[in-house]
């Protein structure tokens, strides 16, 4: 039986003002074109000015979010760095591929090739923090960040000494990506304003998103924001297996559904996947608030990163912004958050977070 692990800091660069905004979701960003891009931050605070000139947007956001999480944790360097990404640096890949086709395989710039490598952000974070410890990159679609979290949980259980791992996720949307995936029927045909996305759950498709989120995860409860008490990874999920996973999660912690103060759901407005969340909306009692997040960050492989960051903010502020709420509950505090997320390529995730007091 694995011991729980603790989140001691969180930083996110997202389509919302999540990075250095003074308050949580007071100035909500929306879009009308089916795409939510991140709000740029001042990356020069986190990256060497010479190196930054050649870096793509994905590298800048990923490295900055990672460095900020380390800074917020008040540590010099983590014991290891573990990330998850579904797409890596899409833009670098597109640029190298585009040049290769256009220039007929001659005189290519290696920078795009190097940066397109899925583990390049890990390498940069290791260099910047001088962290020579464990280093890993998961690239498993909707379970990329989840695998990174599981890995950190295993590592922290393998070591009895206090340790802190930097764990994070990053994914980028590009014009090409949006076009390619539109042919695979990912997106809504009639695009609503992003803030209305979840009301349009009677048609197929969603809106595209992106973001980077990093956390420090430790085996020491002191000064932590919350624990990751349970982490369940579901493959080829059905409404029944998601429900069973929620029940198992609660049972493992000796909790009842009414003890969950807030359920954070990954519903994306896509009619094909809405049934996975219907029982949550129906079964939760008057105690529990049901909240959603994909109308704020869009759909992407590692959208759980944004959700997890959001959960840490809810614990810290004890305020649930109206824009998140699907169904308001009466529990006065936010002490237990259940995160339920589905990603279209056959994965779902159930995470139980407990505030540490």
């Amino acid at each position: 039986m694995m011991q729980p692990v603790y989140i001691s800091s969180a930083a996110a660069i997202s389509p919302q003002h999540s990075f250095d905004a003074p308050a949580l979701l007071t100035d909500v960003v929306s879009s009308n074109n089916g795409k939510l891009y991140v709000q740029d931050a001042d990356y020069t605070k986190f990256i060497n000015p010479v190196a930054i000139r050649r870096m793509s947007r994905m590298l800048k956001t990923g490295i900055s979010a990672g460095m900020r999480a380390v800074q917020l944790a008040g540590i010099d360097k983590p014991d290891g760095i573990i990330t998850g990404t579904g797409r890596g640096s899409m833009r670098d890949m597109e640029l190298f591929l585009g040049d290769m086709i256009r220039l007929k395989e001659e005189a290519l710039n290696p920078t795009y090739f190097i940066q397109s490598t899925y583990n390049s952000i890990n390498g940069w974070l290791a260099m910047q923090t001088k962290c020579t410890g464990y280093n890993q990159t998961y690239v498993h679609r909707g379970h990329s960040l989840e695998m990174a979290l599981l890995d950190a949980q295993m590592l922290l259980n393998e070591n009895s000494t206090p340790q802190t791992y930097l764990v994070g996720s990053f994914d980028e949307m590009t014009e090409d990506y949006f076009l390619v995936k539109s042919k695979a029927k990912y997106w809504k045909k009639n695009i609503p304003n992003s803030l209305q996305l979840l009301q349009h759950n009677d048609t197929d498709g969603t809106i595209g998103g992106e973001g980077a989120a990093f956390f420090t995860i430790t085996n020491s409860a002191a000064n932590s924001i919350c624990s990751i008490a349970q982490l369940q990874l579901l493959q080829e999920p059905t409404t029944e297996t998601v429900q069973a996973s929620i029940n198992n999660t609660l049972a493992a912690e000796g909790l009842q559904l009414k003890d969950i103060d807030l359920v954070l759901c990954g519903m994306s407005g896509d009619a094909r996947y809405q049934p996975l969340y219907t029982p949550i909306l129906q079964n939760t009692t008057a105690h529990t608030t049901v909240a959603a997040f994909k109308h704020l960050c869009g759909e992407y492989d590692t959208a759980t990163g944004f959700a997890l960051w959001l959960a840490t903010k809810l614990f810290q502020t004890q305020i649930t912004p109206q824009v998140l709420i699907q169904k308001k509950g009466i529990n006065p505090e936010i002490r237990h958050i259940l995160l339920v997320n589905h990603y279209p390529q056959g994965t779902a995730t159930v995470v139980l977070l407990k505030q540490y007091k």
Partner: protein
Amino acid sequence: MAEKIVVTSLGIISALGSGANANLHSLLSAQHGLQYPQHLQSIHAPEFLMGEVALSNDELSAQLGLPTGSNGYTRTALLAMMAMQEVLQGIDKDLLQAEGFAYINANTVGGMCSVEDLYPDFVSDKQEGDFLKYLDTLDCAESTQNVVKHFGISPFTATISTACSSSANAIILGVRLIQHGIVKRAICGGCDALSRFTLNGFHSLKNVDKQTCRPFDNSRFGLNLGEAAGYLLLETEQSAKERGAEILAVLAGYGNTNDAYHPTAPSPNGDGAYNTMQLALHKAGLQPQDIQYINAHGTATINNDAAEGKAITRLFENHIPLFSSTKPFTGHTLAAAGSIEAIFSIWALQQQKVWANLYFTTKMEELDILPVQQTTDANLQYVLSNSFGFGGNNVSLIFGKA
């Protein structure tokens, strides 16, 4: 918690052939698999020797019982399925499924080998065509998911991408998932198909040799690329004994560290390689003198071999093991390199032989140590296999004689 983990089945396809027999035969007879590629469509194909799998996509599809032509499967996935088919022969599928297992795959560029041909259609106004079957094949998990679908299995799945150490990391994850009791068994390894993208990437870095690569040789200039897939079935010694499986080797230890030095170059003194090998020894509870053979990363790039050689010299001091790089046999198969070289290391233990470091003639200026020049008999108890990647991602694995 740290139960002994053993290897009980293998699957491999590389330029040396399809299946264990063909690959082992080539190693034993010192026959390399490098040639000018026949299947890779690149203007550089006539310039660079590569470790290309001889079978075409149609031939691979036919062997897997799939329709030929544009069937929606990338070469990456087809190679993975071929190696997986072989590894699954080593265990009853129902037992595997009933007792819980993981499939941990590793990969560097997903289905780029197909996507690079279809990309103009992907991003054009075109709404119809065979390219639609490949829209979701660019990411690294596509081969993982296609393997799962093809064999009708439902393992715990994950995909790793840490450049050239990817599949060595997949093996480590498998060990840990078993030791934590998350799964009973794990099939771990990696796959990569040759692509213009990768060839041009390494070529733009001036890392590719036009001649056969010459690891640990003073005249080395760069690597030859290759393609392959290789998987290992891992389980506890107890689980292997319960089902009466033959134990091929013991997975004695592993190390994963990061160089934290440069995006593409290793630290010049090999500090990263040193730390990784030392960590693997520590995990295995072994001393440097317990290792008799190192299957080196040995890409034949200027930087790697100098750094790796210096690290070996410093760590093993007066007990330098026999060492060689098998990259001249297969080319550098990137994400698959860790797992196919793990297989070569296991065969070294089983055959009590060390594999030739082909094309070595002249000692490196920077080193005082020499690689094994001919495949020869050796008394081996423990073998160390190195895989080092871009981003400073280093892994060492130690296998012990069964």
